């Protein structure tokens, strides 16, 4: 990671800045990301237009919000693969509460987010108190929550008429799509949590060495539970945004959400072994995936081939991470 730059002479401040940038973890990623942008701009003129960029941002929101929180999950040494199903359940529950039970919209949203947080906390508690790996518990939830969503809706979409809520879900503010604003807001929020709060720093300590963290007096269990609850809440928010966009509650949405969210985090440099990862890295990862998907659509790439490309990108990202870590540990 840290490039060994031989300090032969006293560097000027400009050189020092250059060295700091050179030694930055995400530099390689940023270069690749810029290269992708340049390539796509040259290949399709419509890529770099303002409206297309906003649409990239809007689409990025539908997995980026989850990806930001997923960064905390992965840094803490856990994983959440139930996010797609959680989003579908959130959407379905909203439809049932509002359209079938007559619950007011705001109350329904609060209820849905509360239920989501509870489900995430459950997975975290299973990890903390019964030592069930989150890979297993969220794999179970991956299936169960999707099934539950289909159960409560009979697998039929429930149309929800527009209301004020949907302006906030699907409208625009100053020409910027609301989901994009949510994306940026969540990104900033998670970055602040990760870097500026005791909780955020503790997440890194827990993921880096949970035994040492525990002996240092960090409430390891509480932190894991909280992180998992945040993750499923972010998934529920995504489910609500998707419902707003579709004007319906739907149990089939957000299939593959876990893939894009985890990919963005991994591309951003987080290590699945925990302790390492940054929100800035994940932000670049989110934009990278969103731009890549958008570019491939504009270029008319066969949708099946698109999936192959997405898979390959994740694999390469992991290989680069491993290679970088190994070079670091030798040097």
């Amino acid at each position, binding site marked *: 990671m840290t490039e060994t730059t031989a300090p032969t002479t006293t560097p000027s401040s400009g050189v020092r800045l250059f060295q700091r940038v050179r030694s930055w973890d995400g530099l390689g990623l940023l270069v690749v990301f810029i290269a992708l942008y340049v390539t796509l701009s040259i290949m399709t003129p419509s890529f770099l237009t303002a409206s297309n960029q906003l649409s990239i941002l809007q689409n990025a929101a539908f997995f980026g919000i989850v990806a930001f929180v997923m960064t905390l999950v992965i840094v803490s040494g856990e994983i959440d693969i139930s996010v797609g199903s959680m989003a579908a359940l959130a959407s379905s529950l909203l439809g049932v509460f509002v359209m079938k039970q007559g619950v007011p919209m705001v109350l329904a949203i609060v209820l849905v987010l509360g239920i989501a947080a509870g489900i995430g906390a459950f997975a975290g508690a299973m990890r903390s108190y019964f030592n069930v790996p989150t890979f297993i518990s969220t794999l179970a939830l991956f299936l169960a929550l999707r099934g539950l969503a289909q159960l409560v809706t009979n697998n039929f979409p429930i149309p929800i008429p527009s209301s004020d809520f949907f302006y906030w879900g699907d409208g625009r503010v100053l020409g910027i799509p609301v989901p994009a604003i949510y994306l940026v807001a969540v990104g900033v929020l998670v970055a602040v949590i990760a870097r*500026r709060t005791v909780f955020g720093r503790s997440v890194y300590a827990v993921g880096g*060495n949970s035994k040492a963290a525990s002996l*240092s007096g960090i409430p390891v269990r509480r932190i894991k539970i909280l992180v998992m609850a945040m993750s499923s809440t972010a998934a529920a928010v995504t489910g609500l945004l998707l419902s707003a966009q579709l004007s319906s509650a739907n149990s089939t949405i957000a299939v593959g959400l876990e893939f894009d969210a985890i990919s963005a985090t991994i591309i951003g440099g987080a290590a699945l072994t925990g302790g390492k990862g940054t929100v800035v890295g994940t932000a670049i990862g989110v934009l990278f995936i969103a731009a890549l998907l958008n570019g491939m659509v504009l270029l008319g790439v066969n949708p099946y081939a698109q999936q192959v490309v997405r898979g390959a990108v994740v694999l390469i990202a992991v290989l680069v991470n491993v290679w970088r870590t190994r070079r670091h540990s030798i040097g």
Partner: protein
Amino acid sequence: MNDETILACRGMTKRFGAVTALEGVDFELKRGEVRALLGKNGAGKSTLVNLISGSLQPDHGEITLLGETVHWANPKAAQAGGIAVVHQEFSLVPGLTVAENITMGRWPRRRGFVNGAALREHAARALALLGADIPLTAEVGKLALAEQQIVEIAKALVDEPKVLILDEPTSALNQTEVEALLGLVRRLAHGGVAVIYVSHRMKEIPLVADTLTVLRDGREVATHDVASVSSAQVAELISGSIDVGTELEHRDRREAPVVLRVEDLKVPHRLHGVSLSLHEGEVLGIAGLLGSGRTELLESVFGLRHDATGRIELGGRHVVGRHPRRMLDLGVAYTSEDRKAAGIVSMLGVGENLLLTARGRVLPKFWLRPIKESRLVKDSMAALSIRASSPDQEIGTLSGGNQQKGVIGRALTAKMRVLLLDEPTRGVDLHAKAQIYRLIRELADGGVSSIFVSSELEEIAEVCDRVLILRDGRVHEELIGREATAERILALAMRQEHEHD
């Protein structure tokens, strides 16, 4: 036949940079002989073992095996040549059977399939050498620790080695298991295998070994028949004459108020009613052999053991419901003997590591306070003289000594009043050791009390104001100030109890 020399090492020398780990050591081993290899940590025992078993190559000196000079390029070559090592850590796969583990890496194959019958036969032969009765098809993970140790030894025997090296084979076993294991070793020797037996447990030596070699500071000090020396003489050979140039001044803090009182602390099979008082600004040493309950004592006080019973008072107030976070809130910190696994968070910076306990205690619970934090970290790093390029340098990239200073410094940064230090100088170079001793003393001068557990008796003698001797889970003697010399501590720690209950 019985006098045939199997292994002869001459002038074994090994240096690591400026440090001489082993210098001109001669070592000879006869068929059927059990040789105990003794010495303090860092005396050169493991270097010698590593040279014989091919993990290291000597800078000077030669090894002859059955009269032929050998040069092992790696452990595999030594193994093929007839040298087998059983390391302290098990290398067993819990999910495989006993037979599969014993023959691991050499599973006999027939047309691409594992030949189960041949495999079991090899394994049975190795177990028979030990005269052990363990079902071959049992899953290793379900065996008792002692049985796993036997499987580990059988694994080393499958190639029918001429020399078997046992590195602290009994450290995880209880008394009866130890006796059974010693019996197995005698039996092997009787069958003609030459055994090198490395152990800290002195009372095993007369039971198992014919001869003993003592190393100190990389040199061979003495080689004797076990029968011809007393354990006190051995203790003296091991510790040597103490010559500490900058001896720290001993203080007597017994008049100071008691900060921590432990009463009748019990842990099943480990501690049998330990009571002690720790005074303000006192450094209290706990000395005892491996398995005497040293670590369990610290763990129990810190609330890490749920099977511990007994009363703990802090500043005269009874602590109910001990657990680590509560103890830290009360100003009691603990550092584990396993720095890598339970001390440092290696991928975080030195500064972050120093702040782990302080946050939420001397620092606010929610928001970070960057300016206050960086000042705290700067002060701590200066007080600890941690050598790092910046507080952001990953602690895992520092030397062991600086890592350890970081772990102790975590308690310092959080203004802890009582430190429970388990082997705080393990794997740390001499210079850093001296710094850590000084640090503990300086903290004590400032009123911080420490319980100092170490297997290095010189440092206990040097650092501690008062020393308690722990044997078989009980506190037996108390040595005050200058009474506590390394020889005395060792002699007391090794003293054999007349059979109790």
